[in-house]
Protein backbone atom coordinates (compact mmCIF):
# COMPACT_ATOMS: atom_id res chain seq x y z
CA UNK A 1 0.00 0.00 0.00
CA UNK A 2 2.76 2.36 0.98
CA UNK A 3 4.51 1.74 -2.32
CA UNK A 4 1.33 2.73 -4.18
CA UNK A 5 0.97 5.97 -2.28
CA UNK A 6 4.57 6.88 -3.03
CA UNK A 7 4.10 6.25 -6.71
CA UNK A 8 0.92 8.32 -6.86
CA UNK A 9 2.99 11.27 -5.78
CA UNK A 10 5.50 11.07 -8.60
CA UNK A 11 5.34 13.75 -11.25
CA UNK A 12 7.68 14.43 -14.11
CA UNK A 13 7.84 17.79 -15.81
CA UNK A 14 9.19 17.94 -19.33
CA UNK A 15 8.66 17.53 -23.03
CA UNK A 16 8.78 14.20 -24.83
CA UNK A 17 11.37 15.30 -27.36
CA UNK A 18 14.05 16.01 -24.73
CA UNK A 19 16.86 13.41 -24.42
CA UNK A 20 17.16 14.32 -20.74
CA UNK A 21 13.46 13.76 -20.05
CA UNK A 22 13.72 10.50 -22.04
CA UNK A 23 16.44 9.30 -19.66
CA UNK A 24 14.19 9.77 -16.65
CA UNK A 25 11.17 8.19 -18.39
CA UNK A 26 13.31 5.12 -19.18
CA UNK A 27 14.43 4.85 -15.53
CA UNK A 28 10.87 5.18 -14.23
CA UNK A 29 9.64 2.60 -16.73
CA UNK A 30 12.43 0.14 -15.87
CA UNK A 31 11.49 0.39 -12.21
CA UNK A 32 7.78 0.14 -13.04
CA UNK A 33 6.97 3.40 -11.26
CA UNK A 34 3.68 5.10 -12.09
CA UNK A 35 3.84 8.84 -12.48
CA UNK A 36 2.05 11.85 -13.85
CA UNK A 37 3.72 13.37 -16.88
CA UNK A 38 3.24 17.12 -16.96
CA UNK A 39 3.99 18.30 -20.46
CA UNK A 40 5.72 21.66 -20.61
CA UNK A 41 6.47 23.89 -23.59
CA UNK A 42 10.09 24.50 -24.57
CA UNK A 43 9.16 27.78 -26.23
CA UNK A 44 7.02 28.98 -23.37
CA UNK A 45 8.23 27.58 -20.05
CA UNK A 46 5.55 27.34 -17.38
CA UNK A 47 5.60 29.01 -13.98
CA UNK A 48 5.75 25.56 -12.44
CA UNK A 49 8.98 24.82 -14.29
CA UNK A 50 10.58 28.18 -13.56
CA UNK A 51 9.66 27.94 -9.90
CA UNK A 52 10.65 24.34 -9.37
CA UNK A 53 13.99 24.67 -11.18
CA UNK A 54 14.96 28.31 -10.68
CA UNK A 55 18.69 27.57 -10.91
CA UNK A 56 18.72 25.99 -14.38
CA UNK A 57 15.14 26.56 -15.64
CA UNK A 58 15.38 23.27 -17.51
CA UNK A 59 13.61 19.95 -17.83
CA UNK A 60 13.37 17.29 -16.56
CA UNK A 61 12.11 18.11 -13.09
CA UNK A 62 10.98 15.23 -10.88
CA UNK A 63 8.54 15.99 -8.10
CA UNK A 64 8.24 13.17 -5.57
CA UNK A 65 5.94 13.68 -2.60
CA UNK A 66 6.36 17.41 -3.08
CA UNK A 67 10.16 17.25 -3.16
CA UNK A 68 11.90 18.50 -6.28
CA UNK A 69 14.87 16.84 -7.98
CA UNK A 70 16.60 18.33 -11.05
CA UNK A 71 19.33 17.25 -13.50
CA UNK A 72 18.55 14.04 -15.37
CA UNK A 73 21.30 11.69 -14.14
CA UNK A 74 20.88 12.98 -10.57
CA UNK A 75 17.18 12.14 -10.93
CA UNK A 76 18.05 8.66 -12.25
CA UNK A 77 20.27 8.04 -9.21
CA UNK A 78 17.52 9.36 -6.95
CA UNK A 79 15.04 6.94 -8.53
CA UNK A 80 17.48 4.06 -8.11
CA UNK A 81 18.15 4.89 -4.44
CA UNK A 82 14.57 5.67 -3.46
CA UNK A 83 13.22 2.49 -5.03
CA UNK A 84 16.31 0.44 -4.25
CA UNK A 85 14.36 -2.69 -3.44
CA UNK A 86 12.62 -2.58 -6.83
CA UNK A 87 14.50 -4.46 -9.53
CA UNK A 88 16.36 -3.71 -11.67
CA UNK A 89 19.16 -1.81 -9.99
CA UNK A 90 20.22 0.94 -12.35
CA UNK A 91 23.67 1.23 -10.79
CA UNK A 92 25.77 -1.83 -9.94
CA UNK A 93 26.51 -2.76 -6.32
CA UNK A 94 30.30 -2.61 -6.40
CA UNK A 95 31.71 0.90 -5.70
CA UNK A 96 34.23 0.67 -8.54
CA UNK A 97 31.64 -0.44 -11.08
CA UNK A 98 29.38 2.40 -9.90
CA UNK A 99 32.22 4.87 -10.40
CA UNK A 100 32.79 3.57 -13.94
CA UNK A 101 29.07 3.89 -14.74
CA UNK A 102 29.13 7.47 -13.46
CA UNK A 103 32.30 8.14 -15.46
CA UNK A 104 30.69 7.14 -18.75
CA UNK A 105 27.48 9.03 -17.99
CA UNK A 106 29.58 12.13 -17.24
CA UNK A 107 31.56 11.53 -20.44
CA UNK A 108 28.33 11.57 -22.46
CA UNK A 109 27.31 14.90 -20.91
CA UNK A 110 30.69 16.65 -20.66
CA UNK A 111 32.41 15.48 -23.84
CA UNK A 112 30.09 13.75 -26.30
CA UNK A 113 27.10 16.09 -26.18
CA UNK A 114 29.16 19.29 -26.67
CA UNK A 115 31.03 17.79 -29.63
CA UNK A 116 27.80 16.67 -31.30
CA UNK A 117 26.29 20.05 -30.50
CA UNK A 118 29.24 21.54 -32.36
CA UNK A 119 28.36 19.47 -35.43
CA UNK A 120 24.78 20.74 -35.33
CA UNK A 121 25.68 24.36 -34.76
CA UNK A 122 28.90 24.67 -36.75
CA UNK A 123 29.87 25.25 -40.31
CA UNK A 124 33.00 24.85 -42.37
CA UNK A 125 36.20 24.30 -40.43
CA UNK A 126 34.52 24.60 -37.05
CA UNK A 127 32.01 21.92 -37.95
CA UNK A 128 34.74 19.67 -39.32
CA UNK A 129 36.64 19.94 -36.04
CA UNK A 130 33.44 19.07 -34.14
CA UNK A 131 32.92 16.05 -36.42
CA UNK A 132 36.44 14.81 -35.66
CA UNK A 133 35.92 15.30 -31.95
CA UNK A 134 32.57 13.49 -32.07
CA UNK A 135 34.11 10.56 -33.94
CA UNK A 136 36.88 10.32 -31.36
CA UNK A 137 34.38 10.43 -28.49
CA UNK A 138 32.10 7.83 -30.06
CA UNK A 139 35.14 5.60 -30.65
CA UNK A 140 35.93 5.76 -26.96
CA UNK A 141 32.40 4.58 -26.23
CA UNK A 142 32.85 1.81 -28.79
CA UNK A 143 36.04 0.76 -26.96
CA UNK A 144 34.21 0.71 -23.64
CA UNK A 145 31.48 -1.46 -25.11
CA UNK A 146 34.07 -3.80 -26.62
CA UNK A 147 35.59 -4.22 -23.16
CA UNK A 148 32.13 -4.81 -21.69
CA UNK A 149 31.29 -7.45 -24.28
CA UNK A 150 34.59 -9.20 -23.54
CA UNK A 151 33.26 -9.62 -20.01
CA UNK A 152 30.06 -11.08 -21.44
CA UNK A 153 28.02 -7.90 -21.05
CA UNK A 154 25.64 -6.68 -23.75
CA UNK A 155 25.43 -3.23 -22.19
CA UNK A 156 27.78 -0.79 -20.46
CA UNK A 157 26.73 -1.91 -17.04
CA UNK A 158 26.15 -5.56 -17.53
CA UNK A 159 23.62 -7.94 -19.03
CA UNK A 160 20.82 -5.42 -18.60
CA UNK A 161 20.65 -1.72 -19.32
CA UNK A 162 21.88 0.52 -16.54
CA UNK A 163 23.04 3.99 -15.69
CA UNK A 164 25.47 4.62 -18.56
CA UNK A 165 23.15 2.99 -21.12
CA UNK A 166 20.36 5.33 -20.00
CA UNK A 167 22.67 8.36 -20.23
CA UNK A 168 23.64 7.57 -23.82
CA UNK A 169 20.35 6.01 -24.90
CA UNK A 170 18.27 9.08 -24.08
CA UNK A 171 19.95 11.00 -26.88
CA UNK A 172 20.01 8.36 -29.64
CA UNK A 173 17.03 9.68 -31.60
CA UNK A 174 18.56 13.19 -31.55
CA UNK A 175 21.91 11.77 -32.64
CA UNK A 176 20.32 10.07 -35.64
CA UNK A 177 18.49 13.26 -36.57
CA UNK A 178 21.62 15.39 -36.28
CA UNK A 179 23.53 13.08 -38.62
CA UNK A 180 20.68 13.21 -41.12
CA UNK A 181 20.27 16.98 -41.04
CA UNK A 182 23.97 17.78 -41.21
CA UNK A 183 24.67 14.93 -43.64
CA UNK A 184 27.47 13.57 -41.47
CA UNK A 185 28.22 10.01 -40.44
CA UNK A 186 29.20 10.06 -36.81
CA UNK A 187 28.26 6.50 -35.84
CA UNK A 188 30.33 4.55 -38.32
CA UNK A 189 29.38 0.82 -38.46
CA UNK A 190 32.81 -0.10 -39.82
CA UNK A 191 34.81 1.74 -37.19
CA UNK A 192 32.36 1.36 -34.28
CA UNK A 193 30.83 -2.11 -34.55
CA UNK A 194 30.20 -2.50 -30.80
CA UNK A 195 28.51 0.85 -30.51
CA UNK A 196 26.31 0.08 -33.52
CA UNK A 197 25.38 -3.30 -32.10
CA UNK A 198 24.57 -1.65 -28.77
CA UNK A 199 22.37 0.94 -30.51
CA UNK A 200 20.46 -1.75 -32.40
CA UNK A 201 20.01 -3.73 -29.20
CA UNK A 202 18.85 -0.63 -27.31
CA UNK A 203 16.24 0.25 -29.92
CA UNK A 204 14.88 -3.31 -29.78
CA UNK A 205 14.06 -3.23 -26.07
CA UNK A 206 10.24 -3.20 -25.87
CA UNK A 207 10.13 -0.89 -22.90
CA UNK A 208 12.48 1.57 -24.58
CA UNK A 209 10.55 1.50 -27.88
CA UNK A 210 7.49 2.92 -26.17
CA UNK A 211 9.44 5.77 -24.66
CA UNK A 212 11.92 7.04 -27.23
CA UNK A 213 10.72 10.27 -28.78
CA UNK A 214 8.93 10.33 -32.13
CA UNK A 215 11.78 10.48 -34.70
CA UNK A 216 9.68 12.65 -37.03
CA UNK A 217 9.16 15.30 -34.37
CA UNK A 218 12.82 15.18 -33.35
CA UNK A 219 13.94 15.52 -36.96
CA UNK A 220 11.65 18.51 -37.34
CA UNK A 221 13.14 20.15 -34.28
CA UNK A 222 16.74 19.42 -35.27
CA UNK A 223 16.11 20.77 -38.79
CA UNK A 224 14.63 23.91 -37.29
CA UNK A 225 17.66 24.36 -35.02
CA UNK A 226 20.10 23.79 -37.88
CA UNK A 227 18.33 26.37 -40.02
CA UNK A 228 18.37 28.80 -37.10
CA UNK A 229 22.10 28.38 -36.48
CA UNK A 230 23.15 28.56 -40.11
CA UNK A 231 21.02 31.62 -40.83
CA UNK A 232 22.42 33.33 -37.72
CA UNK A 233 25.92 32.70 -39.04
CA UNK A 234 25.00 33.81 -42.55
CA UNK A 235 23.61 37.01 -41.08
CA UNK A 236 27.04 37.92 -39.62
Amino acid at each position, binding site marked *: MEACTEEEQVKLLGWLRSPFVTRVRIALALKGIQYQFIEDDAENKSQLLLQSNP*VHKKVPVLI*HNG*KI*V*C*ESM*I*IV*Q*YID*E*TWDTKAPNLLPKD*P*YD*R*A*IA*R*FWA*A*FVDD*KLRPSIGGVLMGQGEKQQKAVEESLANLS*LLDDALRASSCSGNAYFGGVEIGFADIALGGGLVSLKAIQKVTKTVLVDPQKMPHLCAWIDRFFEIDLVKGILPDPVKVLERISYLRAKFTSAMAGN
Partner: protein
Amino acid sequence: MEACREESQVKLLGWRRSPYVTRVRIALALKGIDYEFILEDSENKSQLLLQSNPIHKKVPVFFHNGKTLSESTIILEYIEEAWETKAPNLMPKHPYDRALARFWAAFVDDKLLPSVWGLLKWQGEEQQKAVKESLANFSLLEEALRTSSCSGKAYFGGDEIGLVDIALGGPLVHIKNLEKVINIALVDPVKLPLLSAWMARFSETDELKRILPDPADVFEYLSAKRAKVMSTLPGI
Protein backbone atom coordinates in the same frame (compact mmCIF):
# COMPACT_ATOMS: atom_id res chain seq x y z
CA MET B 1 44.84 -5.97 8.95
CA GLU B 2 42.72 -6.06 5.84
CA ALA B 3 41.99 -2.35 6.12
CA CYS B 4 45.71 -1.62 6.34
CA ARG B 5 46.44 -3.61 3.23
CA GLU B 6 43.67 -1.81 1.36
CA GLU B 7 44.99 1.56 2.36
CA SER B 8 48.53 0.77 1.31
CA GLN B 9 47.12 0.18 -2.16
CA VAL B 10 45.77 3.71 -2.39
CA LYS B 11 47.62 6.12 -4.62
CA LEU B 12 46.82 9.60 -5.82
CA LEU B 13 48.41 11.22 -8.84
CA GLY B 14 48.42 15.01 -9.02
CA TRP B 15 49.91 18.31 -8.03
CA ARG B 16 49.19 20.21 -4.81
CA ARG B 17 48.02 23.39 -6.48
CA SER B 18 45.17 21.65 -8.33
CA PRO B 19 41.74 22.38 -6.82
CA TYR B 20 40.52 19.02 -8.05
CA VAL B 21 43.41 17.07 -6.50
CA THR B 22 42.80 19.08 -3.31
CA ARG B 23 39.23 17.78 -3.18
CA VAL B 24 40.42 14.17 -3.18
CA ARG B 25 43.14 14.88 -0.61
CA ILE B 26 40.52 16.45 1.66
CA ALA B 27 38.25 13.40 1.39
CA LEU B 28 41.11 10.99 2.10
CA ALA B 29 42.20 13.07 5.10
CA LEU B 30 38.68 13.26 6.52
CA LYS B 31 38.31 9.49 6.22
CA GLY B 32 41.78 8.93 7.68
CA ILE B 33 42.93 6.92 4.67
CA ASP B 34 46.67 6.61 4.11
CA TYR B 35 47.86 6.87 0.54
CA GLU B 36 50.87 7.43 -1.63
CA PHE B 37 50.82 10.86 -3.23
CA ILE B 38 52.59 10.71 -6.57
CA LEU B 39 53.57 14.25 -7.49
CA GLU B 40 53.08 15.14 -11.11
CA ASP B 41 54.49 18.05 -13.06
CA SER B 42 51.73 20.22 -14.49
CA GLU B 43 54.06 21.44 -17.26
CA ASN B 44 55.26 17.98 -18.20
CA LYS B 45 52.70 15.22 -17.78
CA SER B 46 54.18 11.81 -17.07
CA GLN B 47 53.61 8.60 -19.00
CA LEU B 48 51.86 7.25 -15.92
CA LEU B 49 49.33 10.08 -16.05
CA LEU B 50 48.77 9.86 -19.80
CA GLN B 51 48.37 6.09 -19.65
CA SER B 52 46.16 5.94 -16.59
CA ASN B 53 43.85 8.72 -17.76
CA PRO B 54 44.04 8.53 -21.55
CA ILE B 55 40.56 10.00 -22.03
CA HIS B 56 40.96 13.27 -20.14
CA LYS B 57 44.75 13.35 -19.48
CA LYS B 58 44.08 15.25 -16.26
CA VAL B 59 44.68 15.03 -12.55
CA PRO B 60 43.59 13.76 -10.11
CA VAL B 61 43.98 10.09 -10.95
CA PHE B 62 43.12 7.71 -8.14
CA PHE B 63 44.40 4.17 -7.77
CA HIS B 64 42.89 1.64 -5.39
CA ASN B 65 43.92 -2.01 -5.40
CA GLY B 66 45.20 -1.65 -8.94
CA LYS B 67 41.99 -0.05 -10.26
CA THR B 68 42.07 3.42 -11.73
CA LEU B 69 39.60 6.28 -11.47
CA SER B 70 39.54 9.85 -12.71
CA GLU B 71 37.22 12.88 -12.33
CA SER B 72 37.31 14.36 -8.84
CA THR B 73 33.61 14.19 -7.86
CA ILE B 74 33.39 10.61 -9.12
CA ILE B 75 36.47 9.80 -7.00
CA LEU B 76 34.82 11.49 -3.99
CA GLU B 77 31.70 9.32 -4.26
CA TYR B 78 33.90 6.26 -4.75
CA ILE B 79 35.89 7.02 -1.58
CA GLU B 80 32.63 7.44 0.32
CA GLU B 81 31.22 4.14 -0.97
CA ALA B 82 34.42 2.07 -0.75
CA TRP B 83 35.01 3.23 2.82
CA GLU B 84 31.35 3.52 3.74
CA THR B 85 31.78 2.25 7.27
CA LYS B 86 34.58 4.73 8.03
CA ALA B 87 33.30 7.92 9.63
CA PRO B 88 32.63 10.59 8.69
CA ASN B 89 30.12 9.96 5.95
CA LEU B 90 30.67 12.43 3.16
CA MET B 91 27.20 11.88 1.72
CA PRO B 92 23.87 12.09 3.56
CA LYS B 93 21.80 8.96 4.05
CA HIS B 94 18.44 9.96 2.58
CA PRO B 95 18.11 9.76 -1.22
CA TYR B 96 16.63 13.26 -1.45
CA ASP B 97 19.47 14.82 0.53
CA ARG B 98 21.93 12.86 -1.60
CA ALA B 99 20.28 14.23 -4.75
CA LEU B 100 20.59 17.78 -3.36
CA ALA B 101 24.27 17.21 -2.52
CA ARG B 102 24.94 15.94 -6.04
CA PHE B 103 22.97 18.87 -7.49
CA TRP B 104 25.08 21.50 -5.73
CA ALA B 105 28.36 19.68 -6.37
CA ALA B 106 27.42 19.58 -10.08
CA PHE B 107 26.46 23.26 -9.88
CA VAL B 108 29.95 24.09 -8.60
CA ASP B 109 31.52 22.20 -11.50
CA ASP B 110 29.14 23.08 -14.33
CA LYS B 111 28.21 26.68 -13.50
CA LEU B 112 30.25 28.28 -10.74
CA LEU B 113 33.80 27.30 -11.63
CA PRO B 114 33.49 27.94 -15.39
CA SER B 115 32.20 31.44 -14.58
CA VAL B 116 35.04 31.98 -12.09
CA TRP B 117 37.85 30.68 -14.32
CA GLY B 118 36.39 32.79 -17.10
CA LEU B 119 37.18 35.92 -15.12
CA LEU B 120 40.86 35.52 -15.96
CA LYS B 121 40.09 35.72 -19.64
CA TRP B 122 38.13 38.90 -20.13
CA GLN B 123 38.41 42.65 -20.04
CA GLY B 124 36.01 45.58 -20.17
CA GLU B 125 32.38 44.81 -20.96
CA GLU B 126 32.90 41.08 -21.26
CA GLN B 127 34.66 41.07 -17.91
CA GLN B 128 31.71 42.87 -16.36
CA LYS B 129 29.33 40.32 -17.79
CA ALA B 130 31.50 37.47 -16.44
CA VAL B 131 31.63 39.12 -13.02
CA LYS B 132 27.84 39.48 -12.96
CA GLU B 133 27.46 35.78 -13.79
CA SER B 134 29.94 34.72 -11.11
CA LEU B 135 28.26 36.90 -8.49
CA ALA B 136 24.87 35.42 -9.40
CA ASN B 137 26.29 31.91 -9.02
CA PHE B 138 27.81 32.70 -5.61
CA SER B 139 24.46 34.17 -4.54
CA LEU B 140 22.76 30.90 -5.40
CA LEU B 141 25.21 29.09 -3.12
CA GLU B 142 24.48 31.64 -0.38
CA GLU B 143 20.77 30.81 -0.81
CA ALA B 144 21.53 27.09 -0.61
CA LEU B 145 23.28 27.64 2.72
CA ARG B 146 20.35 29.71 3.92
CA THR B 147 17.56 27.23 3.14
CA SER B 148 16.43 23.62 3.73
CA SER B 149 18.80 21.12 5.30
CA CYS B 150 21.72 23.57 5.38
CA SER B 151 19.80 26.18 7.33
CA GLY B 152 21.56 27.11 10.56
CA LYS B 153 24.23 24.48 9.97
CA ALA B 154 27.94 25.05 9.66
CA TYR B 155 28.35 23.29 6.34
CA PHE B 156 26.48 22.43 3.16
CA GLY B 157 26.64 18.87 4.45
CA GLY B 158 25.04 19.82 7.75
CA ASP B 159 27.04 19.64 10.97
CA GLU B 160 29.97 18.07 9.19
CA ILE B 161 31.82 18.61 5.93
CA GLY B 162 30.22 16.77 3.04
CA LEU B 163 30.38 16.42 -0.73
CA VAL B 164 29.39 19.99 -1.57
CA ASP B 165 31.77 21.47 1.00
CA ILE B 166 34.62 19.45 -0.50
CA ALA B 167 33.60 20.36 -4.06
CA LEU B 168 33.68 24.07 -3.22
CA GLY B 169 36.54 23.78 -0.75
CA GLY B 170 38.95 22.34 -3.32
CA PRO B 171 39.02 25.59 -5.36
CA LEU B 172 38.66 27.88 -2.32
CA VAL B 173 42.24 29.20 -2.35
CA HIS B 174 41.92 29.84 -6.09
CA ILE B 175 38.69 31.79 -5.60
CA LYS B 176 40.21 33.95 -2.87
CA ASN B 177 43.34 34.68 -4.87
CA LEU B 178 41.47 35.30 -8.09
CA GLU B 179 39.66 38.08 -6.24
CA LYS B 180 43.07 39.63 -5.55
CA VAL B 181 44.36 39.15 -9.09
CA ILE B 182 41.40 40.82 -10.79
CA ASN B 183 40.74 43.15 -7.84
CA ILE B 184 37.05 42.31 -7.57
CA ALA B 185 35.23 40.95 -4.50
CA LEU B 186 33.37 37.80 -5.48
CA VAL B 187 32.30 36.74 -2.00
CA ASP B 188 31.47 40.00 -0.23
CA PRO B 189 30.97 39.39 3.54
CA VAL B 190 28.16 41.97 3.60
CA LYS B 191 26.24 40.60 0.62
CA LEU B 192 27.05 36.90 1.15
CA PRO B 193 27.53 36.53 4.91
CA LEU B 194 26.85 32.79 5.13
CA LEU B 195 29.16 31.89 2.28
CA SER B 196 31.82 34.22 3.61
CA ALA B 197 31.60 32.62 7.05
CA TRP B 198 31.68 29.17 5.47
CA MET B 199 34.86 30.06 3.57
CA ALA B 200 36.56 31.30 6.75
CA ARG B 201 35.45 28.24 8.69
CA PHE B 202 36.63 25.84 5.98
CA SER B 203 40.04 27.54 5.59
CA GLU B 204 40.59 27.55 9.33
CA THR B 205 39.82 23.86 9.92
CA ASP B 206 43.07 22.39 11.28
CA GLU B 207 42.79 19.16 9.37
CA LEU B 208 42.39 21.02 6.10
CA LYS B 209 44.91 23.84 6.48
CA ARG B 210 47.85 21.61 5.57
CA ILE B 211 46.05 20.28 2.51
CA LEU B 212 44.79 23.49 0.93
CA PRO B 213 47.25 24.79 -1.66
CA ASP B 214 49.79 27.45 -0.75
CA PRO B 215 48.04 30.82 -1.34
CA ALA B 216 51.23 32.50 -2.55
CA ASP B 217 51.80 29.75 -5.09
CA VAL B 218 48.21 30.02 -6.33
CA PHE B 219 48.35 33.81 -6.48
CA GLU B 220 51.52 33.65 -8.57
CA TYR B 221 49.99 31.05 -10.88
CA LEU B 222 46.77 33.01 -11.40
CA SER B 223 48.65 36.30 -11.86
CA ALA B 224 50.80 34.74 -14.54
CA LYS B 225 47.71 33.41 -16.31
CA ARG B 226 46.05 36.79 -16.18
CA ALA B 227 49.19 38.55 -17.39
CA LYS B 228 49.43 36.17 -20.32
CA VAL B 229 45.84 36.89 -21.37
CA MET B 230 46.28 40.67 -20.96
CA SER B 231 49.41 40.64 -23.10
CA THR B 232 47.50 39.09 -26.02
CA LEU B 233 44.59 41.50 -25.85
CA PRO B 234 44.63 44.37 -28.36
CA GLY B 235 45.67 47.72 -26.89
CA ILE B 236 42.78 50.08 -26.17
